[in-house]
């Protein structure tokens, strides 16, 4: 079964075509645009399911990848090679992510037909943005080089800008979309810098070329500003991840992005955009490793995970809790990258995408039904909810499953993936003292995650309705295909059995056996040695697009000796047990605080800390009031002064004066020399000659005769 371009290209071309068509018809018919967009994403899901099947169960699951290169443009001149290639690169990781993106995207868009129906800001317009957004993520997933990753990355940046600012008449939404766009731009600039730096060394930005360059040690000995170039590149690329995946210190845009419609939050913050940053970090993992910045990555992830989790404790907006939990979970993924838990980080990416999309959709399902008749708006505040379990049983079930998953309860996906990350962090902490704070940050965040998620559940679904009037007005939930089906479908995939046959963390792998660890055996670190002395000319743009490569064998012992591996597994088991108890502890604390109400909430005892949390650690104040007001604006004014006071005044205006003199001289030359002397002079001369000649042509025959005679006489005189 050979792959050709026709079986791959529709995955990205179908949504793109659907975007173009729906954008054309959206002014005429909302429903038609929605239908086109839906069929685009579902068609893409069908095509990608074949790739998924082949790479997970089928012929390519043993270590092939698809690589197809197209020459985009070629500006080579002599020895200077400047050739830009676009390409498709699909390995097991990309295939899984592709399937997840298209399936979750389909579910979100089906749910959107319920949530956005009749929206006065544009039912069809929303789907046009969503399908373009999906195109961006799908394109990023199958990109084979950093340049096209960057292009799709920016495409998603634009779409998130449009979606966050979807309710464009709301002041807060308009500000939030600009904030999101500008904040991610900070990371993007570094990312672009890294691409240029890589290009300057490798001469290509293709992933396989970069791996080959790493294997051939092309970066050895190069330095910039006194630091090794590879470290500089690694930090710059990771800055892109920080911006896109909302890591500390660029996490400020994500909570504000909740201004968009809830399905778009599910799309941006669960399935696609924030996952792109982690996906990039996984793709360029060899660079991060070679740059020796993994500990930096781990600390950033840990700080983000714990910091966001603490802020989530005091949020009352149901979407804000989910937003901070998203940042926190992304912190876990980055932490996983940092401690070398490569496949666990990716597994957490997939698991998180599923349960967080489901959580967002469930919150959308709640918000959409809670209609405030006094203000005419929807209610997002948890203090006005409570007891909704009876009104919305199906949403409750879906949300409960997802909450178990995110909290890391056994037999759920969050446990399987998060426990591996924490277990690896634990192992690293026992081996390197510098990783101990990372493990502590991770476990603390895990505890808080369980706590604030169940706090949200108890405040929303349990207890007595706190706003009786709102509760009574809410309709009883009935099974709707576009409201409940996506939720229930997604919530099924929160079960751990889909991610690991052993149901447990890495600690018990030896017990269950390798063959149950299908996820871990599929996704492996790219081994750069496989690409040693690799040359892209092997591909030559011909049609054969599948290639075999020797995948690094799944090694449960991480290349350690049998004794040490046993020891590590022992530590892993301890870590797994700790994380089970931590999740239970968080659950019980929330249970007693918000369900039994036997413990008073501690808000009054830690008033100052609550205030800090409510202000999100003053990051927004610092960026807006400090960095922008005190730093950027004076700098801008200074540059404006240079621009207008010096440059404009002396160079532009001075040059103008020089030119004015030149022009008047040229004008004088034009008037006097050219006009008067040449143009008029030639006219006057012609007229003069004309007057002279006219006198000879008098029409008198005797005059002619006289002239002829005088001429003849003169001629004869000259002969004498």
């Amino acid at each position: 079964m050979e792959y050709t371009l026709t079986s791959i290209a529709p995955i990205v071309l179908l949504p793109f075509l659907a975007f173009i068509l729906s954008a054309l018809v959206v002014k005429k018919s909302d429903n038609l645009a929605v239908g086109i967009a839906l069929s685009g994403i579902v068609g893409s899901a069908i095509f990608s399911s074949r790739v998924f099947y082949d790479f997970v169960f089928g012929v390519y699951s043993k270590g092939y990848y698809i690589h197809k290169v197209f020459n985009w443009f070629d500006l080579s001149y002599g020895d200077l090679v400047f050739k830009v290639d676009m390409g498709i690169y699909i390995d097991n990781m990309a295939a899984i992510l592709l399937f997840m993106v298209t399936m979750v995207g389909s579910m979100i868009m089906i749910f959107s037909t319920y949530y956005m129906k009749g929206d006065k800001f544009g039912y069809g317009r929303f789907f046009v943005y969503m399908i373009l957004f999906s195109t961006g993520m799908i394109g990023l997933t199958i990109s084979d080089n950093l340049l096209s990753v960057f292009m799709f990355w920016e495409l998603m940046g634009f779409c998130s800008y449009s979606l966050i600012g979807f309710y464009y008449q709301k002041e807060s939404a308009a500000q939030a979309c600009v904030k999101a766009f500008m904040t991610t731009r900070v990371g993007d600039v570094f990312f672009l810098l890294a691409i240029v730096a890589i290009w300057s060394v490798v001469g290509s930005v293709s992933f396989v070329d970069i791996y080959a360059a790493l294997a051939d040690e092309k970066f050895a000995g190069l330095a910039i500003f006194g630091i090794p170039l590879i470290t500089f590149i690694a930090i710059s690329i990771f800055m892109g991840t920080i911006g896109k995946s909302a890591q500390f210190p660029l996490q400020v845009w994500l909570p504000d992005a909740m201004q968009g419609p809830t399905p778009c939050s599910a799309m941006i913050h669960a399935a696609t955009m924030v996952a792109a940053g982690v996906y990039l970090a996984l793709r360029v993992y060899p660079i991060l490793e070679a740059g020796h910045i993994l500990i930096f990555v781990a600390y950033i992830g840990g700080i983000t995970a714990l910091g966001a989790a603490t802020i989530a404790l005091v949020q009352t907006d149901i979407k804000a809790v989910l937003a901070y939990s998203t940042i926190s979970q992304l912190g876990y993924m980055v932490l996983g990258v940092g401690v070398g838990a490569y496949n666990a980080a990716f597994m957490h990416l997939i698991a998180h995408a599923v349960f967080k999309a489901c959580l967002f959709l469930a919150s959308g399902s709640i918000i959409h039904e809670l209609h405030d008749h006094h203000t005419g708006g929807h209610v997002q505040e948890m203090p006005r909810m409570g007891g909704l379990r009876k009104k919305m049983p199906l949403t409750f079930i879906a949300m409960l499953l997802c909450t178990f998953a995110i909290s890391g309860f056994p037999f759920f996906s969050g446990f399987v993936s998060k426990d591996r990350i924490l277990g690896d962090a634990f192992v690293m902490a026992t081996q390197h003292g510098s990783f101990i704070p990372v493990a502590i940050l991770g476990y603390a965040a895990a505890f808080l995650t369980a706590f604030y998620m169940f706090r949200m559940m108890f405040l929303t679904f349990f207890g007595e309705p706190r706003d009786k009037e709102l509760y009574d007005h809410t309709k009883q939930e009935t099974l709707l295909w576009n409201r409940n089906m996506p939720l229930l479908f997604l919530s099924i995939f929160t079960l751990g059995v889909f991610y690991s046959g052993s149901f447990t963390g890495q600690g018990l792998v030896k017990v269950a056996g390798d063959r149950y660890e299908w996820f871990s055996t599929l996704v492996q670190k790219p081994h750069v040695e496989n690409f040693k002395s690799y040359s892209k000319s092997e591909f030559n743009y011909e049609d054969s697009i599948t290639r075999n490569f020797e995948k690094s064998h799944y090694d449960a012992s991480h290349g350690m000796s049998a004794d040490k591996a046993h020891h590590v597994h022992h530590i892993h088991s301890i870590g797994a047990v700790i994380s089970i108890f931590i999740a239970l502890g968080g659950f019980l604390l929330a249970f007693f605080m918000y369900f039994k109400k036997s413990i008073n909430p501690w808000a009054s005892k830690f008033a100052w800390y609550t205030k800090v949390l409510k202000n999100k650690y003053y990051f927004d104040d610092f960026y807006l009031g400090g960095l922008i007001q005190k730093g950027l604006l004076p700098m801008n004014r200074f540059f404006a002064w240079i621009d207008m006071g010096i440059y404009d005044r002396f160079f532009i205006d001075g040059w103008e004066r020089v030119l004015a003199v030149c022009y008047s001289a040229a004008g004088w030359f034009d008037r006097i020399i050219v006009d008067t002397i040449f143009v008029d002079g030639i006219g006057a001369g012609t007229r003069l000659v004309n007057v002279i000649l006219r006198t000879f042509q008098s029409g008198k025959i005797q005059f002619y005769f006289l002239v002829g005679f005088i001429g003849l006489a003169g001629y004869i005189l000259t002969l004498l």
Partner: protein
Amino acid sequence: MMNLAAYLFISLVLFLCGIIVIIARKNIVAILIGMELILNAAALNFVAYSRYVTHHIDGHIFPLFIIVVAAAEAVVGLAIVIRFFQIKETIHIDDATQLQS
């Protein structure tokens, strides 16, 4: 003793008289007469050179031709003048302007 120079002088005077008549007079008949004077001046030159320089008969024969041609020319010229007079009722040279546009 009359010599060549005297003949040539007479010839020159005749020639200039003819020229002046042609240029100055407005009467077409007078102009024709002036042309006869020029022809006669030329004929006199032929004879004079034949008598004093070449001693040959050719110079004597040429004036006979000239007299014949002059007679023929006078006939044609006068015929034109008469015809002109019949059309224009004048023989003023400046009125002969039909060929001008």
